[in-house]
């Protein structure tokens, strides 16, 4: 199969409309089709990585739990913008491992490596 690498740029907070879930579904399907997929978290999107969120309390679907299954869909690359974390007084206390924290400059450069970017 031909290859096209996809970067998904997540800029919406955890429960903002259906943005995070819809982005994740796209990541899973591209992964299933053996395309290179990476998740990027910028701006409010970084909130999707924060540890100890409890979706069930607000009757929201806990799609954040699915992030831990990403390796089974061959999605191995997760990048987060340090500048966005600092802006929000957030640490790297994430609910999943293998997140690469990049400076704003490196984050932008990493994004350039992909053939296509979808933003949610």
């Amino acid at each position, binding site marked *: 199969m031909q290859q*096209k690498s996809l970067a998904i740029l997540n800029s919406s907070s955890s429960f903002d409309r259906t943005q995070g879930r*819809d982005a994740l579904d796209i990541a899973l*399907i591209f992964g299933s*089709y053996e395309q290179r997929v990476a998740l990027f978290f910028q701006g409010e999107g970084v909130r999707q990585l924060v540890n100890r969120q409890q979706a069930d309390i607000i009757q929201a679907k806990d799609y954040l739990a699915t992030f831990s299954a990403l390796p089974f869909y061959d999605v191995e690359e997760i990048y987060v913008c340090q500048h966005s974390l600092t802006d929000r007084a957030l640490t790297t206390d994430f609910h999943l491992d293998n997140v690469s924290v990049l400076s704003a400059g490196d984050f932008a450069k990493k994004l350039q490596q992909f053939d*296509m970017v*979808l*933003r949610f």
Partner: protein
Amino acid sequence: MQSLAFIITTSPLDNRTVTSINLITAALHNNIKVLGVFFYQQGVCNANKDIIIASDEFQPLKAWQNLQQKYDIPLHLCVTAGEKHGLIVEEQQANIDDVFTLSGLGELVELSIQATRVIQL
């Protein structure tokens, strides 16, 4: 040959959808191949044939029909999003206009691989 694929996420009532339709039309007028349009999120509502819009306003469904009939462009509807928006009842295309095709997200992967550029709108 240069080609495009489009993802439409905006509702038919959103003026940005007018922009998207005009943009796709412009591409076709410039002899750019459009491999397909994939409707995702709120965008699936564009396929709802029961939406009634006053006759003095822009008719998005009419515009999609024209595009599909004139240029034979596949208009793919995400099944899961369609179900969530009440467009599919018991596996039947309940109120989906005939110019649209029910597809899985896999179709988006295929379009993305084939198209020179994918434009998310």
